[in-house]
């Protein structure tokens, strides 16, 4: 066991516990806050993978934007502090079995496959390479521009849906 392995196990366990609480906690605000905790854990995992840009993007986008959006949505759609009643459907056991089976089968697949080892050496300046290949016509310029179109469509759509129409008020 090296130090990095111990650290990985700590972060992974913390993330998974937080994620478990996200799916089981009854109070939805608490679920959203646990989601934030698990996202921070994932950011730490990205750091361990030498993907510092991914880690910061994870925090900026998920913790700083999407989590806030979710908390807003939870607060806008409820009236009481405690969410009363059961928070899971009647056939939750079916869902549990299904996800358990899925996890079992994927882990069997993962553990019986031979994976490449960690390449030697540093990763270099990934952000620079990423920036170049995102606007390189031979690489990802089409996905890059399409992503911006997707986002603008999402913006227009969500404003059209969420904005109360003037007549109804």
């Amino acid at each position, binding site marked *: 066991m090296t*130090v990095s392995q111990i650290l990985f196990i700590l972060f992974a366990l913390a993330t998974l516990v937080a994620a478990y609480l996200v799916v089981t906690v009854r109070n939805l*605000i*608490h679920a959203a*806050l646990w989601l*934030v905790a698990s996202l921070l854990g994932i950011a730490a995992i990205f750091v361990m993978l030498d993907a*510092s*840009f991914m*880690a*910061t*993007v994870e*925090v*900026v986008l998920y*913790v*700083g*934007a999407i*989590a*806030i959006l979710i*908390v*807003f949505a939870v*607060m806008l759609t409820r009236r009481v*502090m405690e969410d009363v009643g059961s928070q899971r459907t009647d056939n939750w056991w079916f869902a549990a079995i299904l996800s358990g089976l899925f996890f079992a089968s994927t882990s069997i697949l993962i553990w019986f496959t031979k994976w490449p080892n960690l390449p030697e050496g540093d990763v270099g*300046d*990934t*952000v620079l390479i990423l920036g170049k290949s995102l606007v390189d016509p031979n690489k990802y310029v089409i996905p890059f521009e399409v992503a911006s179109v997707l986002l603008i469509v999402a913006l227009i759509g969500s404003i059209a849906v969420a904005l109360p129409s003037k007549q109804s008020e």
Partner: protein
Amino acid sequence: MPEVRVGDLLVSLYDLLGWGLSELGLYPSVVSILQKLVAGFILANFCLLTPLLTIWLERKVSARFQDRLGPNRVGPYGLFQGFADIVKLITKEDITPAGADKTVFNIGPVLAVMSVLGIWAVIPFTSTMVGTDINVGILYSVAVGAIGTLAIMMGGWASNNKYALLGSFRTVSQLVSYEVPMIIALLIPTLLAGSMRMNTIVQEQQVWFIVAAPIAGLIFLISGIAEVGRAPFDLLEAESEIVAGFHVEYTGMKFGVWMLAEFLHAFTVSAITAVVFLGGWRGPWVDQYPLLGIVYFLIKTYLVSMLMLWIRVTVPRVRIDQMNDLNWKFLVPLSLAVLVMTALVDKLIPVDFSAGSRSLILFLVNIVIVVATLLVLRGVSRKEQAAQSDLQAEVNSI
């Protein structure tokens, strides 16, 4: 034993500490962690004690602005007023409101301080003295700051108080709104320096970026003031209008910790402005004596923070719709325009131009943008005045 350089004393001491620890027979990784622990401890102390000084300075200076004396009872010139306030806050009863979500209520202020303190890990004090120079420094400062937004949300929600929750909603919507022009403004120095490392950004400033990107600097300062929630953007906790904002239920030291986070955040925004736009530790003789960089950096930071104070005591509080319009209908389009112009023009300048002439050309471009913006604004306000006078004429005719 490493050589001790007077010009770079603190870094030498750091190396010396590492040497001493490894002489004791510790593993290199343990040594480096202990070194970092000591450095982090000193940095955290510096950051958390600075607000005491800035609060005193602020009270004193704003008192002079308003023709008052300011604190003058505790210690010489009232210097120890901050300590007296801490003693007062720490001995006050700590009330948790009934029905509050206790854990979240307590985590809120701690998280706020943590998020602001985290930014200091990437701020370069001198060319050699920077906590850690990660390759995403400038984006990291935004990311850690974003956790503070969440802390405010937690504090407001857990208080079990309508006004606190409403206050946190307003605060969060202001913070997230002003984050957009702030990040766009930070994109321009990144683009000019070609790196997100804070230290590289300082090194690339043969001419301060405030010359090449004055509008971006101004936008960053304005949105920074809004992020911190100080006057004229303090409508979220306007004492004279609404109760207090998200921290209305906090008492004793918990309230003090919120205040600490707020003042430290103000200081941090000044520090980032100094690093990114005013050349950070740059100044005469830093090449021989890197330690001088701290002095230059702190002078610039305090100048920016005095500028913020000046704005605070001069400009009246804005209305919430004005605050909103200022951001979405003025700062965001303007920052996008500046970004596009800078990107296009800087690429068109031939490569063999010196840094000075390059900055000059970009400065002229910025002036053109300012003139164009002012013309557009004049057109808009004329249209509005015309509409107003039409309305007046209609009312008169009735």
